[in-house]
């Protein structure tokens, strides 16, 4: 997993005068699991469709193994796709669906039979050869779609929110399954999703996108621990995003207090965004805390409680395993590694405090599904 397989340079896409992709640059390595992550309309599906050859970019280039493939039609690319709603051929049975690409390529009968049988084994569908695809469950259809694509031994597999229609339990199983297949076959997977947890679980690298721009590229750990701006911090996991001022290297001021942090390289007194993950905040007795506040709401989440704490009008989300009743006065401590400092960006003001948090709560959970750039 080293040399680059696909390179996108200055990729832009306009639909009816509306910019969907704006000067995208991205390099994708061989045999890696790369996820394009972002909210609906961020351009992730458009990017995938350009790589698949279903759309041609308004400007910019797509390189595959160093060759420009802008004008190469999909049927001549060594790339296969798993579509959002599987797009299985309803008039063919499971076997013929999987064999479709091989038949078009006019492979000898024995070869087709060998590869289809082997592939159905890999996706645990042996014995389903002559079932109608319409009689299968969502998870099974999903696996037929994966087998139908992988049986052609593509260099790259594109997956467009393939788990969106499955229930939670099945989704978790399929996540592991996909990762296993990807590692076993050594094929590059490019995966599109709006589900941050899915992205963190499976990916080698994540590309966070919004409004046609790449916000950050990195490993799941990088993206979670070192978000580049307020958008990434907010989109990946829960976060408290605060205004701060960088006093000096490793020293940041928030709410009039100065804290030791691990970030450097900012100008003196530069205004910054500060991210504090809700699980990194230590709750201490009120008198021992650097800040004290009042608990205004408590939600039980299974593993932990989500509590909203009011610090003089500014509300924070804190995740804790210790129950704190509403109205309790608590103090908090911040370790240096709990504080992450980011440069100011266009997103700085969009995710201010959590004062309206409880109202937005549900909306944040249910990211609208599948609507992402349906074009």
């Amino acid at each position: 997993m080293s040399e680059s397989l696909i390179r996108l340079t200055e990729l832009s896409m306009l639909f009816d005068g509306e910019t969907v992709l704006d000067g995208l640059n991205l390099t994708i390595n061989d045999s890696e699991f790369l996820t394009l992550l972002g909210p609906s309309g961020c351009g992730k599906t458009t990017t995938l469709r350009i790589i698949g050859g279903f759309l041609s970019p308004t400007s910019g280039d797509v390189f595959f193994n160093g060759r420009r493939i802008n004008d190469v039609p999909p049927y001549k690319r060594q790339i296969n796709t798993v579509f959002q709603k599987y797009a299985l051929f309803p008039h063919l049975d499971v076997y013929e669906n999987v064999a479709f690409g091989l038949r078009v390529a006019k492979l000898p009968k024995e070869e087709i039979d060998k590869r289809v049988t082997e592939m159905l084994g890999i996706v645990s569908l042996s014995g389903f050869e002559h079932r109608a695809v319409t009689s299968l469950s969502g998870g099974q259809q999903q696996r037929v779609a994966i087998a139908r694509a992988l049986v052609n031994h593509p260099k790259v597999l594109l997956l467009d929110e393939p788990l969106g229609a499955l229930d939670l339990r099945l989704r978790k199983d399929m996540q592991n399954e996909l990762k296993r297949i990807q590692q076993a076959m050594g094929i590059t997977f490019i995966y599109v999703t709006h589900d941050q947890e899915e992205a963190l679980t499976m990916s080698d690298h994540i590309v966070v996108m919004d409004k046609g721009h790449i916000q950050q590229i990195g490993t799941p750990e990088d993206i979670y621990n070192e978000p580049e701006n307020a958008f990434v911090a907010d989109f990946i996991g829960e976060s408290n995003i605060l205004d701060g001022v960088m006093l000096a290297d490793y020293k940041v001021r928030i709410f009039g207090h100065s804290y030791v942090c691990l970030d450097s390289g900012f100008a003196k007194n530069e205004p910054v965004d500060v991210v504090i993950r809700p699980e990194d905040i230590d709750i201490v007795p009120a008198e021992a805390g650097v800040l004290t506040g009042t608990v205004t709401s408590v939600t039980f989440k299974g593993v932990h409680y989500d509590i909203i704490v009011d610090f003089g009008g500014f509300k924070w989300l804190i995740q804790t395993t210790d129950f704190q009743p509403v109205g309790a006065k608590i103090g908090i401590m911040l370790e240096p590694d709990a504080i992450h400092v980011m440069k100011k960006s266009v997103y700085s003001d969009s995710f201010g405090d959590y004062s309206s948090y409880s109202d937005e709560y549900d909306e944040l959970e249910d990211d609208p599904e599948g609507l992402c750039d349906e074009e």
Partner: protein
Amino acid sequence: MKKLGRVYTVVIYLFLYIPMIVLIVASFNTGKDLTTFDGFTLQRYAELFRDRTLLPLLGNSVLIAVLSSVIATVLGTAAALGIHSMRGRIRSVVMSVTTVPLMNPEIVTGVSLALLFVFVGVVLKVNSILGFVTLLIAHITFNLPYVILSVMPKLTQMDPHLREAALDLGCTPVQAFFKVVIHEILPGIFSGAIMAFTMSLDDFVISYFVYGPNFVTLPVEIYNYVKKPLQPKIYALFTLLFLMILSVMVLMNLMQMRDEKRRKLQRPE
């Protein structure tokens, strides 16, 4: 209330079908008079099948109907594919343009086609251009919108990713159509073809303006018969025509039912 509704339905269907029933009964009647039923006979049918002029005319009508519906189906399906791939505004404009000929009074279509053919005849210096070819062209023309209108919904219902999946798996666009898309829109193609066939088979108004003395279809000839006292064997002919159309319609409905069942199966969630 419910009972009243049922009575109403029966009355409506009686009104719709009584003329046909009268005709069918008359075709089996021995008496010359329509008002009294003297006895059952197949004599009219025997007369009909011995007739040297009517049967070939029915053959002409069927020939034109088959040819024009097949050609219109091929052209119309291709047109529907083209219209389907258009975007937004242009597509709705083209669809309206497609439906206008359906609304246009047939007599206007007939006269304008006749004028066009005569004009072309003058330009090509052909003396009697009206005949089999003009009749066929006219029938294809008025059949096209029916085919387009019945194929279009199938194309919009189809998951657009199916075609892309075929391309993705190595099909050229032509292969993708024959290996995948056609299976999805086949019910629409069939019902379009059947509708075109029935429209063409019984067309009189347009045919009347574009037929030539060498090639006459049945509806046109029957119009000439009507001027004279109607021979009873005509009843037999009409009965056969009616049954023909009826069975085609039943076939079409059966196919639609099967298609709907299949589509229900496709979306189990």
